[in-house]
């Protein structure tokens, strides 16, 4: 007889990996401060949890890291967790198409989720503070390019990292059923 019969180890594994990725994103942001760039890659935290976990676990993870993201920025209003939850919801609905976890498909999914979230944030969440329309456009494009590059290069790795860590711990991680 066990004390905790129905604990889902996958949740804790993905949570641990997400915390490590969150830490790395913070370090990367600190390094890029030297050139005034803002790296925006929350999809690295949302896509793996939405692919592998149950629906409510994935949404909880998204809301939790949404609040963490918002805590490190001068943004208010709980819009960031809402955005993260909505992204998680959409990925959960689409995950059956990515059951094979091919690199191109994962890269495409992560990149498109990330860029959609970035554009939504730019339009509705981030402070505007326009010093000129051209400066604003350059700011948005520059940060989008940096974030796109990182998302395209490392998204498949971020997803497979969860699988690898779970495998090492003896847990099988597969794309879940639709909610």
């Amino acid at each position, binding site marked *: 007889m066990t004390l905790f019969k129905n604990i889902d180890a996958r949740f804790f594994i993905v949570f641990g990996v997400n915390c490590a990725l*969150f*830490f790395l994103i*913070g*370090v990367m*942001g*600190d390094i*890029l*401060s*030297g*050139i*005034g*760039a*803002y790296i925006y890659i929350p999809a690295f935290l949302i896509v793996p949890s939405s692919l592998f976990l149950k*629906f409510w676990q994935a*949404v909880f993870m998204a*809301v939790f890291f949404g*609040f*963490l993201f*918002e*805590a*490190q*920025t*001068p943004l*208010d*209003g*709980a*819009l960031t*967790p*809402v955005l993260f*939850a*909505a992204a998680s*919801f959409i990925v959960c609905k689409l995950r059956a198409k990515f059951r094979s976890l091919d690199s191109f498909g994962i890269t495409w999914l992560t990149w498109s989720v990330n860029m959609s979230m970035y554009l939504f944030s730019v339009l509705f969440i*981030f*402070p505007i*503070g326009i*010093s000129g329309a051209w*400066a604003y456009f*350059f*700011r948005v494009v*520059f*940060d989008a390019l940096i974030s796109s590059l990182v998302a395209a290069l490392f998204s498949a790795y971020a997803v497979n990292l969860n699988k690898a860590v779970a495998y090492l711990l003896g847990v099988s991680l597969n794309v879940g059923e639709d*909610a």
Partner: protein
Amino acid sequence: MASSHKNTARLNIGIFIAILALCLVVPSGVKNFVSDMFGEFRAPFDILPSHLRDLQKYWSLSSRSKRDLIEAGRDLARLNAALELRVLENETLRSRIKRYEDMFSIPPTGMYKQHIARVARRDLNAWWQQLVIRKGSIDGIKEGSAVIYGGGVVGRIKEVGLFTSVVELVSSRNFRMAAVFEGDDRPVIYQGVGQVSFGSGCGEVTDVYSDMTASVSKPRKLMTSSIAGVFPEGLPIGTVSSLNLNYDGIFKTGRVDLSTNLSALNEVLVLVPIEAEQKK
């Protein structure tokens, strides 16, 4: 079977929309509490890499030869001697100011408690300009306190957590203070303008009298004013290389170039005002 899947999906969507609506309409007090709670949860993510960087620097320095250390010690001893002389001069000047204040019944200028803090994380981009330092309310840091470094003004404490605090940089768009030009008593307004990608942060000075001039060959230094509030008087903010007349023809406006060291700070000094009651 298909209908039960549909019902489950509808129920999930309904609950999801309800939670989204709750997130949007929940009172701001609850949001602030949740935000503070998550801020404290994420504080170790900032503090840990800062400690690791310090440890890395310690090990790289300890691998230096004794000769290097002796030379560095000798240079520091010379610097210390010069600074000790300055401290003695400062004491003389302070006692003179105190005599004048008593003589003319002038209220004393602000006194500060100084806290040295390591920078844990830099968040400098075109959207916002802030630093996270490794001191919080548990160390006596207060919201609104001035933050300075060897080269002048860094910013103001915006948020205080238990172990970390957020500093709004002088280049932030929300940063505004009274300032004066070096050698001139007339107050002007300094406002941060932000940072452009691939560029450095800068500010803007407004309400400058039309007789003031500045050029690239003869830039003017902008300093903190005695009416700057939490900042001591006479600290450098930046330099102004050009001033342009406004449409009203009375005042001028100019761009303030800030030090590039602001984006590479490792340590800052927080000045917490000592309350008048404590002075008595």
